[in-house]
């Protein structure tokens, strides 16, 4: 009885633990220090966007987490395992979408997904059957019409959607997406966002993605990490980050054909006063908080300055 409880307790501890844990991560390429003490942790089911200028070390960080690169120093755990020592069972619980792939050009889409999915069959469990059904997956990424087409005949965006499909065919518990939507048209981008939401809501997948599209980061991520100069300089929801940088909101309105802009940290009070003073003369009212883009630029500028 007590043994059972102890075991249950252990399970709970594991479940409540972090999906990703990084502390004191350093990485140098020869004399070039790319990462200098990166710390963060990600809870199971969380969606995290890793932002930062080109060359900030985003891809290096992801590659270390994927087990494709050995760090110079620091502690890294992915699903409780050190990626440098991860075995195939651990590997089966991850999904990886790299920046650019041109492989398997001769394979038709359906055949390739079906073949790659079969690698996950031995790792199927009752609670998490693997792999995903090939037909359903192709439909989910919007490639049904291209299912019989050879991979080298796909457009850039279609190719990228196939990469994402291959990344999730094994129903990963942790999914790494390195610039997943580069080259997507707006419709494909929206479909991809729906897919990410579904993965995190229905499958409880922990997702770490890098992107240069701040709008996308804001839409998808529960939390945003900004990496620059080899360190994480901001960590929080888009909302919290923007409040930290500035509480100001911009209020725009027009009166008697003239347009006005006013920045204030109490938009509600200001608008209330505006209406009290001018009533129905106020038109075109718009209250805008700092976007993630404003926040991001402000944070980077502060770091540089």
């Amino acid at each position: 009885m007590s043994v059972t409880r102890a075991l249950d307790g252990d399970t709970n501890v594991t479940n409540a633990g972090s999906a990703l844990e990084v502390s004191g991560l350093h990485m140098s390429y020869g004399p070039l220090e790319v990462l200098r003490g990166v710390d963060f942790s990600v809870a199971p089911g969380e969606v995290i966007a890793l932002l930062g200028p080109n060359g900030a070390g985003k891809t290096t960080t992801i590659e270390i987490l994927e087990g494709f690169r050995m760090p110079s120093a620091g502690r890294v755990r992915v699903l409780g395992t050190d990626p440098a020592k991860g075995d195939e069972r651990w590997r089966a619980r991850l999904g990886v979408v790299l920046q650019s792939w041109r492989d398997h050009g001769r394979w038709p889409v359906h055949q390739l997904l079906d073949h790659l999915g079969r690698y996950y069959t031995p790792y199927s469990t009752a609670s998490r059957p693997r792999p995903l059904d090939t037909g359903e997956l192709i439909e989910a990424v919007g490639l049904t019409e291209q299912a019989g087409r050879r991979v080298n005949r796909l457009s850039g965006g279609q190719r990228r959607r196939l990469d994402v499909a291959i990344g999730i065919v094994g129903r990963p518990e942790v999914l790494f997406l390195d610039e997943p939507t580069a080259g997507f048209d707006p419709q494909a981008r929206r479909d991809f966002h729906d897919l990410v939401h579904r993965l995190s809501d229905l499958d409880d997948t922990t997702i770490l993605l890098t992107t240069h599209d701040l709008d996308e980061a804001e839409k998808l991520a529960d939390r945003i990490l900004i990496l620059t100069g080899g360190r994480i300089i901001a960590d929080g929801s888009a909302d919290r980050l923007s409040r930290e940088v500035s509480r100001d909101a911009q209020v725009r309105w027009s009166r008697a054909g003239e347009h006005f802009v006013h920045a204030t940290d109490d938009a509600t009070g200001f608008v209330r006063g505006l209406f009290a003073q001018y009533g129905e003369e106020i038109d075109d009212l718009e209250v805008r908080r700092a976007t993630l883009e404003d926040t991001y630029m402000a944070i980077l500028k502060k770091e540089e300055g």
Partner: protein
Amino acid sequence: MNPTSYAARLGLSRGWIEFKHSLTNPQDIGFTIVTTAAFVVVLYLQRDAKVPGTDLSLAAATLPGVLGIGMAFNGLSGAVGALAVEREDGTLLRAKALPQGMVGYLVGRIVSLSLAAVSGLLIVLVAGLFLVPELTGAGLGAWLTVAWVAALGLVATLPWGAVIGSLANSPQAAAGLSMLLFGALSSVSGIFYPITALATWLQAVAQAFPLYWLGLGMRAALLPDAAAAAELGGSWRPLETLGVLLAWSVAGLVLAPPILRRMARRESGSLMMARRERALQRIG
């Protein structure tokens, strides 16, 4: 179910699929047609000429060497090309991202390269049956010898191709290196030019490499016993053939896995991108 043997089975189906893809690829078919046509033309031009001092047709004397060199060429440069290209296009990294993916990849590659080599051998053989009348007289024993020499020749060359493909920096460097190596070895291999006419030290060099023994093994299988008189030592030396080919096979099989593992461990997305950028600079 053991995941490793399961992945090896996936590799078998992967190799079969890739082989079928190459059968429908115009570039691959074109390459096979051109190389086969070159061999057939040579055999055709030699069909009436006789090896001096014998009534053996020159075509009959050349064909075995062509079979041998084809096996080595497919094994070596096939593996070099596949590895060098697939490191750059991300196939290897994709395999690395899958559980047991490298096992599936390697088994698949061995299967598809072997199928390509064997089908190349069969094409030349079929052409040979029409142009070299001596071939139709070959018995079961002769064909069994062709089979083991071909199989061992493949095992003796393919792992070395994988090693070169792993060590090279770019597909271009890999292709250049393997062509250079292959050209040098085949010129002293005794396949196109009798080895007995070469300087003694060149004979020694040729005999250290598998290419000479592949040609000799094929000649032993398909030529009349009397033709052995024209070989070094006046014998087919089947035991030495077996020994040298086995030695190269064992050395390759021992050396290739750690080198492949080391190469695979170092592969990463950014490395692949860096290579691509270099490739684009070369073009631009």
